[in-house]
């Protein structure tokens, strides 16, 4: 996870992966995703925003390689069909029998690396999320926000090219959520990582991302793509600026349109 160069402006980023003409059909007739095209560039912070049932989680699972598209394909830069990534789920998804450090060690452990050989990386990841003192604690001893930080540390620890986050802060209270949003942006600035972030919160998506993909349901599809032209770093100043309010209104309208659009296929 050593990135020194600043994230280049949006027009000049290298391609990381491309989803082309993706359809995903469940049980032969439930269309979860229809004709999704998305190019993800290195350094992008993309939010997938939409109502439930719009296929945003399906899209994430397809990118993660947990499912195969019915038609269409996902191609990573370099022609691979899979890539290394970190994932953060809606729940912290920690192993309760393992300490915080052991949980963060997991991605390495599954690659056959002993704890001692990657101890520095594990401790560095914990330091980045502000939990360097909690390595020996068990998950049950931590608050909801802290557990989520452990989950983020685990996603970061191997320095993956892409981090997928599936409504990671949806279950947290508003104050914790703001704090984690701020810290996430700081982390992203430090690590220059690429993030795809699923959310149903307009405010969160505008605050975090430089690209917002608005999705519609029944069938799940991309309805609009917006660019958030506000410079990073963003902090509390941005959250209270009129610019932020205007962007939120614009995004909100796009989401509203997406929800009123009628799909080509009746559900």
């Amino acid at each position, binding site marked *: 996870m050593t990135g020194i160069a600043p994230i280049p402006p949006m027009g000049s980023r290298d391609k990381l992966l491309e989803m082309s003409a993706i359809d995903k059909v469940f049980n032969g007739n439930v269309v979860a995703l229809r004709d999704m095209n998305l190019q993800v560039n290195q350094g992008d912070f993309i939010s997938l925003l939409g109502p439930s049932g719009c296929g945003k989680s399906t899209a994430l699972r397809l990118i993660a390689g947990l499912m195969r598209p019915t038609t269409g394909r996902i191609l990573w830069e370099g022609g691979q069909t899979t890539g290394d990534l970190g994932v953060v789920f809606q729940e912290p*998804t920690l*192993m309760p029998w393992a300490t915080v450090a052991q949980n963060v060690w997991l991605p390495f452990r*599954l690659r056959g690396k002993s704890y001692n050989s990657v101890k520095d990386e594990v401790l560095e990841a914990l330091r980045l999320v502000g939990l360097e003192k909690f390595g020996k604690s068990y998950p049950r001893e931590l608050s909801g926000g802290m557990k989520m930080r452990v989950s983020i540390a685990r996603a970061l620890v191997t320095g993956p090219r892409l981090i997928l986050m599936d409504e990671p802060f949806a279950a947290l209270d508003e104050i914790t959520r703001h704090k984690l949003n701020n810290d996430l942006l700081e982390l992203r600035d430090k690590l220059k990582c690429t993030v795809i972030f699923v959310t149903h919160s307009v405010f969160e998506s505008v605050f975090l991302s430089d690209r917002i993909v608005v999705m519609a349901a029944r069938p799940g599809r991309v309805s609009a793509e917006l660019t958030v032209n506000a410079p990073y770093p963003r902090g509390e100043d941005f959250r209270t600026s009129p610019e932020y309010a205007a962007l939120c209104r614009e995004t909100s309208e796009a989401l509203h349109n997406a929800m009123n659009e009628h799909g080509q296929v009746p559900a």
Partner: protein
Amino acid sequence: MTASELSQSAARQQAEQVVDEEEARRARREMWEQIGKWTLPAIVLFLALFAWDRVVVWNQIPHYILPGPGLVLETLIKDWPILSDALWVTLKITMMALSVAVIGGVGLAVLFTQSRFVEMSFYPFAVILQVTPVVSIAPLIFIYVDNRLAGLLLCAWIVAFFPILSNTTLGLNSTDHNLRDLYKIYGATRWQRLRYLQLPTALPYFLGGLRIAGGLSLIGAVVAEYVAGTGGIGSGLAFRILEAGYRLNIPRMFAALILIAVTGVVIFTLASLLSHLLLRKWHESALKRES
């Protein structure tokens, strides 16, 4: 800060240390519960023994019908050489059966979760073995199995292995689905998933099964011995009870019974202790509630 504000905050600080009526009542109740947890059962046990003794003495019940607790204790000490040998035999069979049940139960459970088809094929057999009363299979077993110890072991195993098998299978299948996805994303092998995810998840379930199986293996050992019935050297407590019954040696029957009951309690306690030691760091069942 003005003087009145200062005194107000001082008063507030003092108020924080004051224990109100409700809290005091709760503390008293907790204290009594702590005391009662040990003393109550002890007192009730003592009263029961006393009542037993008085009933025997006042009604002049002869000892070949109902011996008093004093006589039972006396017999326990006097017959200790015979009874301790029998206890050792029963204990040995129980422990061996439990070990084989643990190995067999966990082994089968792991096999079942590795392949749905294996589970579909063999689970019915496990259920049939479980629901058929061991007393009814035991005579057959002793016809086919020459070695008496092996026969006893087999009977006790049949009774004890099922709770371990079914609990461990349930546990191995109860992994968090997000964690399973995570393992898949990181390309975990089948063995890694079993070792790092499924077995730890199944541990509390297994330990629950172990507590049941411990008692059942003792029951299995005792019942099998009743059926096997042969005496002589190497007989367990069940045989001693039968033998004492034929001779109307009721005090010895009671003494042997007490030994069986105590053995059962010790096995349960040890299993609970093991469970506590293994789970206390992380599992809900072993955590102290903070009120």
